[in-house]
């Protein structure tokens, strides 16, 4: 039904925004302890809680409103300096954030809202929050009590509301705002203004033309009243006449509204905001004076407004403007739509390659020229389309701040997280899948990497351990590093374990990297004591599998006593790459362009699997042999020198066919076992080309060399 879809969409926006706000809140909570001047962060925490409460109110999510309200009240006291934001309170507020998050999750699953007072966990959190509020509000009154900001008793405000035509269409119901307003005080009088509602024949049933005049008695300040309408403020004319205003102010209001003065006067009198007598007298004076007096009167009026009202309005206006500025910078798009776009761009690239091929065959110069322009444009379209899916890794990194904070407490270690390279961008699909492996690596680093405080003191390291997350781009890949400044890996113990598990042959000479790589083997664990987090090694094979599934790889480096660094290398995107086409017999292979270093003429003594590259040994692989391509090698073979993770090796091919974009199509499950091929791509001619998996080939090249070296020694 239409209703469900529409409501879902608006609710979905609420859910997404609530989660973002909770993330902001969490980030601010985690950084607040380290800041010299935490006011900005405290404000950010407060704003997040406040906005969640406000928007939950609009959706009638009373449970969230009630719970968040208490947290907000505590934060309000923190803001005033009445309560100190110590470690205990930070932990409590983090737990509250989680609880709100779970309530939001429940909304998403369209579950009934549990009353936080009735839920044991919610009640416990509320009780702890209340401790900070004593001697303030009584628990039972919490949901009702409005933010007690303004000093003094209740005052009588007059609100004049005219909703814009798009309010209903945007999924807002003026009724919700009025209901929400009623929770902040008492609506003493309300007059619905039907004047703008045309007869049925002229009515736009989905356009809003209602207005309301409200006499409102409350203890909250002007900003709080305005906040009620924060979500429609662009679409709603809101005029607030503060308590104790002179009749002239109402006159001004009357003139600023579309309805006639007498009609409005009557309404105001009905609201009890002015008496009929006062109004009559004032209107008479007004009509006698010249029209230009009116502007002067307005200005004079503004002079008489209490300074705090003006200040509050200015602050709010600034906030709204900032918020809107940030909103304008981004547009939410369905991930499905983006995927479709990327798919189409992929098809476009294949089609362009086909057109190019035909143009070359017909030798039509003009056509070829046009085609090349077209190809350039398509390439740009591809880059910008892929760019749309790029997100900064910072958000993922920031999530680990919380993990580190919690796990450090759990382990009783003092650990800090250092983050760098947050602005490094990578494909959203990659980001989503890298979260779990990274989580495992970070936990491992904390649990087993960081040494005990005593050990650290012995080694003269600072008492607080540091886990660092770093990201940067390197030749078409994104590199993510998880490092710790702990004790480093114990080479001998790993090697011993490897022998014991039969993972290495006795007597084999192994480099440090090869030894360390053993911890990624299935079932390898060197943890002396298994904690409830993880034994180092347990699950590391899963980490490697997950990363390899993303066409990435993982490497580990360690320095005894100094620390360990795990380096994860991932392709920037999973969809389209710049490829370098090479031919072997009749087959075409694609090497990712970013990995191609140079091409040289083939020269090697028969039987050897290496050549001399400007005085350096360059191991190579004969693709013809590796993939069993039939036919004799071409008279002049070439070597494509590829570089990966700082090392080089060569691929022997028959023909160099040049650069072309390759849209990666996954191989069918049948070919999952094939090593050295990461995917396939369709050529302009309609033929299929296989994409070479350089990291895997490199391993093979090194194995070959290792074996050769071994045999020679």
């Amino acid at each position, binding site marked *: 039904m239409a209703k469900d879809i529409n409501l879902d969409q608006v609710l979905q926006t609420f859910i997404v925004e609530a989660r973002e706000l909770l993330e902001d809140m969490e980030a601010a909570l985690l950084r607040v302890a380290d800041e010299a001047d935490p006011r900005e962060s405290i404000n950010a925490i407060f704003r997040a809680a406040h906005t969640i409460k406000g928007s939950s109110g609009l959706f009638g999510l009373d449970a969230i409103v009630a719970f968040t309200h208490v947290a907000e009240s505590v934060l309000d006291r923190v803001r005033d300096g009445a309560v100190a934001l110590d470690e205990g309170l930070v932990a409590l507020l983090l737990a509250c954030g989680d609880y709100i998050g779970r309530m939001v999750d429940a909304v998403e699953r369209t579950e009934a809202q549990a009353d936080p007072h009735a839920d044991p966990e919610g009640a416990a959190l509320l009780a702890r929050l209340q401790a900070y509020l004593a001697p303030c509000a009584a628990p039972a009154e919490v949901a009702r009590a409005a933010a007690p900001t303004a000093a003094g008793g209740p005052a009588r405000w007059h609100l004049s509301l005219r909703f814009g035509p798009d309010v209903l269409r945007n999924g807002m119901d003026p*009724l919700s705002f009025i209901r929400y307003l009623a929770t902040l005080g008492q609506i003493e009088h309300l007059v619905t203004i039907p004047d703008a509602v045309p*007869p049925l024949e002229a009515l736009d049933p*989905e356009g809003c033309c209602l207005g309301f005049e409200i006499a409102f008695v409350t203890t909250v300040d002007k900003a709080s009243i305005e906040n009620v309408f924060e979500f429609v403020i662009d679409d709603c004319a809101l005029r607030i006449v503060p308590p104790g205003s002179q009749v002239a102010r109402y006159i001004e209001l009357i003139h600023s509204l579309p309805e006639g003065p007498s009609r409005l006067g009557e309404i105001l009198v009905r609201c009890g905001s002015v008496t009929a007598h006062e109004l009559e007298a004032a209107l008479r004076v007004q009509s006698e004076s010249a029209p230009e007096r009116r502007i002067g009167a307005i200005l004079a009026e503004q002079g008489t407004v209490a300074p705090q009202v003006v200040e509050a309005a200015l602050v709010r206006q600034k906030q709204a403007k900032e918020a809107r500025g940030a909103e304008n910078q981004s547009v939410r798009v369905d991930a499905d739509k983006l995927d479709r776009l990327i798919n189409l761009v992929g098809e476009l690239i294949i089609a362009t390659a086909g057109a190019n091929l035909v143009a070359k065959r017909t030798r039509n110069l003009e056509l070829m020229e046009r085609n090349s322009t077209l190809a350039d444009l398509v390439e740009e379209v591809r880059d910008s389309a892929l760019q749309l899916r790029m997100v900064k890794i910072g958000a993922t990194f920031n999530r680990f701040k919380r993990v580190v904070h919690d796990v450090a407490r759990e382990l009783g270690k003092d650990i800090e997280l250092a983050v760098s390279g947050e602005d490094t961008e990578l494909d959203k699909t990659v980001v989503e899948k890298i979260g779990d492996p990274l989580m495992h690596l970070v936990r491992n680093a904390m649990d087993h990497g960081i040494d005990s405080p005593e050990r650290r003191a012995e080694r003269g390291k600072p008492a607080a351990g540091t886990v660092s997350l770093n990201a940067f781009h390197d030749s078409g890949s994104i590199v993510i590093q998880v490092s710790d400044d702990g004790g480093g890996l114990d080479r001998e113990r790993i090697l011993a374990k490897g022998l014991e598990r039969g993972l290495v042959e006795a007597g084999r000479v192994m480099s440090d990297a090869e030894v360390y790589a053993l911890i990624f083997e299935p079932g390898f664990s060197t943890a002396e004591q298994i904690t409830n987090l993880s034994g180092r090694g347990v699950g590391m094979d899963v980490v490697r599998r997950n990363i390899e599934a993303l066409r990435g790889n993982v490497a580990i480096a360690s320095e005894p006593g100094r620390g360990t660094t795990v380096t994860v290398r991932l392709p920037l995107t999973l969809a389209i790459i710049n490829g370098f086409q090479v031919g072997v017999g009749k087959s075409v292979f694609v090497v990712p362009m970013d990995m191609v270093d140079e091409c040289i003429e083939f020269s090697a003594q028969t039987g050897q699997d290496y050549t001399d590259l400007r005085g350096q040994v360059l191991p190579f692989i004969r693709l013809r042999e590796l993939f069993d391509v039939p036919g004799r090698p071409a008279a002049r073979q070439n070597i494509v020198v590829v570089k990966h993770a700082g090392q080089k090796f060569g691929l022997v091919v028959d023909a160099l066919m040049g650069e072309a974009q390759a849209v990666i199509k996954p191989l069918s499950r049948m070919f999952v076992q094939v090593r050295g091929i990461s995917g396939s791509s369709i050529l302009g001619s309609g033929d299929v080309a296989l994409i070479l998996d350089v990291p895997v080939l490199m391993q093979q090249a090194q194995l070959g060399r290792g074996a050769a070296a071994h045999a020679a020694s």
Partner: protein
Amino acid sequence: MTSPTFRIDGELTIYRAAELAGAMKAALAAVADGGALELDLSEVAEMDCAGVQLLLAARRSAAESGRTLRLSGRSAAVDEVLATLRLDGHFGDAAGAAH
């Protein structure tokens, strides 16, 4: 002679506003000059401002064409909305007057 009745079930909200506006227009047009249309809202489960607006527009249409619009039944949901907007008295017996 009893007046014709127009009954609305379920939602009287933005999601059905366009559909209901058309139906109400037709129902009003079918009423004889000077006659009255009874609106039965006793089965309305949900009402929002679009619904309120629809009632106000229908009342105006009726008044301008010399007909009368009366609410013959109201559900709890309708009562609550009309009470919130202080419109309770507006659709009573003497609903013909515009003001």
